């Protein structure tokens, strides 16, 4: 049961094959077993069990709230949750219990979902590995999969297994690990430069970043307000569409949500025919750093579309290469501004120093933030200084416009969706990852995902195949603004073609044999 998709388990709940409480307890026990993954910062066991009880009553009375009723979900720990500690994996917010729910959290609860807990991340979502939070790094469940371990046994050079675990990617690595390890059926991440799509690709999941303005940011503790979007992590595209259906829509508490009605619910048709589609392949995304495996899968995917009758075009996004440096200026500037509120007065950490207000501010912020956050605050304030503003911030905004226009031009040339890699390669071991600092890693890892946030477009990472090492590789589809449904429809067709294998965690969950019942033969059409 745990290995099923959200859609499948939802059907099982409706048919009474399992009750919400049973499902909740199974997930809770798996959360305990997989504690070493460090996916969760807070497990809200009592809350979840109580919600399950209520859901059970509704099912008994035939008053189910819909597809999400009784479904265990997890939420990244940078979404405000009423009465549940919300830390952003930072000392600054350790012990902070918000008095309100983020709109997206409230919407999930209103649909009857069970909140299993708050998931781990990089401090204030600043990172691409989920390694830089105060609660420690998140371990990629694929490190413990049969697929990966078997490949490693074949490799005579493989070192000690326990110290050689892999990162999840990030910053929503906790959410990705939680879904990937079957502890819940969907999780909320946030996506500012790829923070949902990147860990999705590394953990073999669907990672969806909706159009900016489609889903409310109210209650999402901001990284970059003008780029942040709540993201969705699920095991398949249909599941992502179900969650999106619950979350999308205008929110009076977020003035940047759009009012134009978008077709709801997000039911995805099964495309029988892609011959009317035009797939764009941005030539600038073919860079030397791209691993040969990913490049090969990317071109095979393009070939697949072509062979099924779709038009595949090479397109140019000439300003994409400036995206990372431009993002650096805009992101740090907004970070400097957004972090100004953490002064130890109203909430969160406060130091013991009280010789003066300024000294108290300084010590509080020094103790509360890690090096990465402090570094970004410092750069951001530099860029916003009167003498620098024109040269950095304004310039970066202009470049941002050019990047966004690149996409508009590509779509205007007749392209329906763009197909790109999500990451340069598969997940790397933690010890490998930390050889470079957070800034270098973020710049490398966001390279294919970041420009999308600049333009506010919808994008989704779809797991495609396992690498030679037995690790997942994802490809990214990018759609027109507010054409989220079309994007997911194409992604769904593609997902069906590639038949990505289910993660085999039987050693990990020895007595959770239910996981295996859904195991499909690893018949990957794109397998190398």
């Amino acid at each position, binding site marked *: 049961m745990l290995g099923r998709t959200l859609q499948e388990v939802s059907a099982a709940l409706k048919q009474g094959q399992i009750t919400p409480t049973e499902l909740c307890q199974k997930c809770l026990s798996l959360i305990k077993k997989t504690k070493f993954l460090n996916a969760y910062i807070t497990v809200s066991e009592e809350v979840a069990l109580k919600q399950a009880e209520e859901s059970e009553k509704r099912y008994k009375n035939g008053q189910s709230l819909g597809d999400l009723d009784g479904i265990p979900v997890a939420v990244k720990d940078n*979404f*405000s949750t009423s009465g549940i500690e*919300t830390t*952003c994996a930072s000392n600054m*917010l350790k*012990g*902070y*219990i*918000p*008095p*309100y729910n*983020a709109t997206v959290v409230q919407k999930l609860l209103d649909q009857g979902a069970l909140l299993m807990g708050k998931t781990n991340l990089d401090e204030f979502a600043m990172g691409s590995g989920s390694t830089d939070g105060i609660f420690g790094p998140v371990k990629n469940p694929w490190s413990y999969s049969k697929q990966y371990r078997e490949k490693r046994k074949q490799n005579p050079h493989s070192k000690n297994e326990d110290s050689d675990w892999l990162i999840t990617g990030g910053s929503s690595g906790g959410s990705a690990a939680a879904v990937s390890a079957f502890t819940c059926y969907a999780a909320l991440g946030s996506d500012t430069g790829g923070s949902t799509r990147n860990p999705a690709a590394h953990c073999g999941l669907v990672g969806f970043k909706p159009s900016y303005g489609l889903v409310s*940011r*109210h*209650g*999402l*503790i*901001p990284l*970059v*307000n*003008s780029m942040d979007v709540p993201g969705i992590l699920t095991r398949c595209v249909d599941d992502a569409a179900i969650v999106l259906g619950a979350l999308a829509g205008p929110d*009076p*508490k*977020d*003035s*940047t949500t759009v*009012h134009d009605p978008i077709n709801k619910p997000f039911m995805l048709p099964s495309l029988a025919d892609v011959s009317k589609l035009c797939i764009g392949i941005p030539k600038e995304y073919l860079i030397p750093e791209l691993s040969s495996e990913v490049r090969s899968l990317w071109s095979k995917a393009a070939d697949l579309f072509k062979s099924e009758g779709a038009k595949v075009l090479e397109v140019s996004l000439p300003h994409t290469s400036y995206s990372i440096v431009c993002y650096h200026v805009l992101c740090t*500037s*907004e970070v*400097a*501004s957004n*972090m*100004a*509120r*953490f*002064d130890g*007065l*109203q*909430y*969160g950490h*406060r130091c013991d120093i*009280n*010789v*003066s*207000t*300024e*000294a*108290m*501010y300084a010590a509080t912020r020094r103790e509360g933030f890690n090096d990465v956050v402090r570094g970004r605050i410092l750069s951001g*304030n530099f860029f*916003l*200084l*009167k003498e620098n*503003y024109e040269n950095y*911030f304004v310039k970066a905004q202009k470049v941002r416009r050019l990047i966004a226009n690149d996409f508009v031009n590509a779509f205007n040339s007749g392209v329906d969706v763009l197909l790109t890699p999500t990451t340069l390669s598969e997940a790397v071991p933690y010890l490998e990852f930390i050889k470079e600092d957070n800034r270098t890693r973020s710049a490398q890892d966001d390279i294919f995902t970041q420009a999308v946030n600049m333009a506010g477009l919808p994008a989704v990472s779809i797991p495609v195949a396992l690498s030679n090492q037995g690790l997942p590789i994802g490809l990214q589809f990018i759609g027109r603004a507010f054409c989220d449904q079309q994007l997911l429809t194409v992604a769904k067709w593609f997902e069906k073609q590639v038949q990505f294998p289910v993660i085999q965690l039987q050693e990990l969950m020895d007595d959770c044999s239910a996981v295996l019942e859904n195991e499909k033969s690893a018949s990957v059409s794109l397998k190398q």
Partner: protein
Amino acid sequence: MAAPMLRWVGRGRRWTFARVDGGSCHRREAPTGSTSNRIRGRSSVAQQPLYTTQKPRKGEHKWAAVVGLEIHAQISSNSKLFSGSQVRFSAPPNSLVSFFDASLPGTLPVLNRRCVEAAVMTGLALNCHINKKSLFDRKHYFYADLPAGYQITQQRLPIAVNGSLTYGVCAGKKQSQVIPKTVRIKQIQLEQDSGKSLHDDLRSQTLIDLNRAGVGLLEVVLEPDLSCGEEAATAVRELQLILQALGTSQANMAEGQLRVDANISVHHPGEPLGVRTEVKNLNSIRFLAKAIDYEIQRQINELENGGEILNETRSFHYQLGCTMSMRDKEGKQDYRFMPEPNLPPLVLYDATSLPAGADPQQVINIDQIRETLPELPSVTRERLVQQYGMLLEHSFTLLNEVGLLEFFQNVMKETRAEPKKVTSWVLNTFLGYLKQQNLAVSESPVTPSALAELLDMLDSRTISSAAAKQVFEELWKREGKTPGQIVSEKQLELMEDRGALEQLCHSMMEAHPQVVMDLKKGNPRAIRRVR
């Protein structure tokens, strides 16, 4: 009063930290030189745009002062600029604070329609160009009563620009002549108010009240077209009347609903402008005039004595009547302005640009607001002059006292007396009594009806002018009697029986033969001896 702490996380920490700098000026250095001299030196400058030094020397230049004002008016609205919390003066500390006002992480601003309408109204009343598109920015600084670490304001593109404010300055021998003057308005911008810091020096702690945090403000920026304290005071008074007539702000300075900062410099006419200082903490119109005149004279003295004016912020100490530097330790502040990413551009419409089928709840139509503008003070004055034939300066006085115009109009409604008579009684007798006892119009013991009745009796010659004054004095005692009752009780009616009057005259003449003689000799003043 100690404010309850605002804490969302229940850990037992005291709401206390060291005092915030900048709150008190009495600890700071006074300007060099004797303060009292400066105060004395200031007395003559009020009406004189050109200044001379105290010790005139040969061939010396005259000084001219340049004064610009930044006025913050709290918008009169039910809720705050970006949150749903109520706006109320003197509510218990921290009782009107939403999650957004306390800047809880993840909260977002939502613009209050009423505040936008108030800004448009005020802009129109001040002859401004209303920008169809305006933007919000963040202005950053750390301060304990600014929970987000930044204020949302309109730095780049404000809602209204390029207006003007016409006000009247009294001149002439008796200050009875009104000279119209105009000050240009640079811009009007919407912005958030901050909270309040209450410094407890004894326990060396600061208490924060966030009730005011996030209340909508209109910042009205005047061009430096003013030249002395009186002009500034009169211009601000006129603005206050306009805001009150519009209902966009209660503009009560004592309650902090209208706050003024003044930028002041002096120079020799024909030469470049001098270095300016900014004077803050001006919380009454009287102190505004005093502070500006003090600062002008201080700058002149400083420059005359070979000193130099620093570009600095000063605060007015109303007890000492002087301005004092409130220099920041860190020197120049860089506010690191940045566009507010959570608020889309504010787009306004007029009749021509309004999209067809637009939801009236979602759009603001400038033309529609223009139609609903109430009568502005200048128009009211003109109407008073036209309708009642009163002098312009009288119309100024009528509007300047809160409630006086309404009182006057209520008397007019009920009396047959000439408008001139009514004006004279209201402005001289009635206002005189109020001033003498320091009462507001609303506290007056004499009602408009009573005064109307009294004036009717005077008009119909039932009583004499002298008797009327006597009746008024009786009315002021609040004994609940009508003028009619007082007149009949005190037998103050004029006699109308010709025979009786004749008889009275004869007996008077008989009783005062000397007076009659003197009168016949041509000395009319002799009659005064008859009582």
